[in-house]
């Protein structure tokens, strides 16, 4: 339990996301086979592996450095649609947080909001387009809402994860209007969106990281 999120926790979040991306690599690729081009798992895994490799070499000294490096690495190793989108998300997180060593739940919520706005700017997705937006937007809103009512970072992350999962699941019945799945028309119905699924993993990583003490991580 913690009320500010320190650099170690932010860094641990990224490491945990990398683990989840690696573990879910084939699951994500399978989802992308159904309505895309069978590479989302490989893309994300390649990108996050590069991120932690860079962090292993030289840990970041502040939040902006941490997330800008993460964003740049994703942009330059992933390719595809998810590279610029996740890359922009992290770049904006860094810019919003600035050169701090810890962030309050409110500041982190604002940073997530900035990240979401970057994703929208890049990809022009709207709610219900069946993209990562559909998991990201409710997760960001849930985190912000919890922070606004003075919840702990742990509780805010827990609420955000729950909202991301619900958002992910809500993509199942949708027809896609953005990305590769949009070619499918009605045939995309019945499948969760791969990007929304990986976004839920991002918040699962945040939730798990903030629910554990530094010693447990």
């Amino acid at each position, binding site marked *: 339990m913690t009320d500010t999120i320190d650099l170690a926790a932010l860094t641990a979040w990224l490491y945990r996301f990398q683990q989840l991306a690696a573990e879910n690599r084939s699951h994500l690729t399978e989802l992308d086979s159904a309505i895309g081009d069978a590479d989302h798992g490989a893309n994300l895994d390649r990108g996050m592996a590069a991120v932690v490799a860079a962090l292993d070499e030289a840990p970041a000294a502040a939040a902006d450095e941490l997330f800008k490096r993460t964003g740049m690495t994703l942009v330059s190793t992933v390719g595809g649609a998810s590279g610029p989108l996740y890359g922009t998300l992290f770049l904006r997180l860094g810019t919003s947080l600035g050169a701090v060593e810890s962030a309050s739940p409110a500041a982190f919520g604002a940073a997530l909001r900035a990240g979401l706005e970057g994703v929208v700017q*890049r990809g022009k997705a709207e709610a219900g387009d069946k993209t990562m937006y559909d998991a990201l937007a409710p997760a960001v809103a849930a985190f912000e809402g919890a922070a606004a009512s003075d919840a702990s970072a742990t509780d805010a992350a827990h609420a955000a994860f729950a909202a991301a999962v619900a958002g992910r699941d809500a993509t199942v019945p949708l027809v*896609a209007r953005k990305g590769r799945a949009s070619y*499918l028309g009605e045939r995309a119905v019945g499948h969760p969106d791969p990007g929304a699924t990986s976004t839920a993993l991002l918040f699962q990583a945040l939730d798990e990281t903030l629910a554990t003490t530094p010693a447990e991580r």
Partner: protein
Amino acid sequence: MKKLINSPDDVLVDSLRGYAAAHPEVTVDLGSRVVFRTVPKAPGMVGLVSGGGSGHEPLHTGYVGLGMLDAVAAGAVFTSPTPDQVQAATARADFGAGVLHIVKNYTGDIMNFEMGAELASAESGTQVETVVVADDVAVEDSSFTAGRRGVGTTVLLEKIAGAAAEEGQDLASVAALARRVAAQGRSMGVALTSSTVPAAGRPTFELPDDEMEIGIGIHGEPGRSRVPLASAVEIARMLVEPVLADLDFTGAPAVVLLNGLGASPLIELYLMYGEVAKLLEAAGVQLARPLVGNYITALDMAGCSLTVLRADDEILRLWDAPVATPGLRWGA
């Protein structure tokens, strides 16, 4: 998965290494996975850059050379290249008169080329124009979605715009020509089998022995419908009709590409061209310039695609201009 490879992760770099060894007239930067002409164009000429996911060879790497592209950013298999690759390719094609980006309409390609153009403009002041190819009539055209996929017209556009750049036209003219070609080309494909992405290790989709996918995308994206395996005559009709329904191709000469998707032998591609040509002629299309073979592929997919470009005298003149690339060559 039966492939002539070492490991799924090394396919692209190993293949680019072989490509470089086979073609001294192009240079491959294996670090950035950028391919460019060994002897660059003269200063003051417009540069042409394309790129995208790999696995569609000869597109795009095979079209670097005289009369076509100057540099290509080669993404991982079926995955668009990254912005820094696009920036590096753009730098190789910047001869002081601006660079045209030729981008197939996929979300990832669009976003990565956009960011690459921003980087090129911010860091070296390169003037970049972008043309987006979205010619696959299998997908409904809509401004509310990602829109149509970019497929076969890309090959024709790279040839025609490349000829215009090679003869010294300025960026505005080359870009305008490229947009005209993009607007006047239409494509439709059919898959008899799925391709297998090396990293995935198994076919992207299951297709029963007695079925085919009409309107397939070059990454194995599903098409309009899955139908029983049919004769070449019937397949030709399923490709020709939606193309002709989408644009009026009468009253102008046409460039026609009957393209193999990777695993269909030439004997079948010529057979398909024969059937397609009959239908197009019957519909009043003037078959001015036919092209048959593997030009934009989908790894080891069996099947073919049809592209028809509504041309004019200027486009035909540029089409006929000399081209000397590993993937397309005549007159030089």
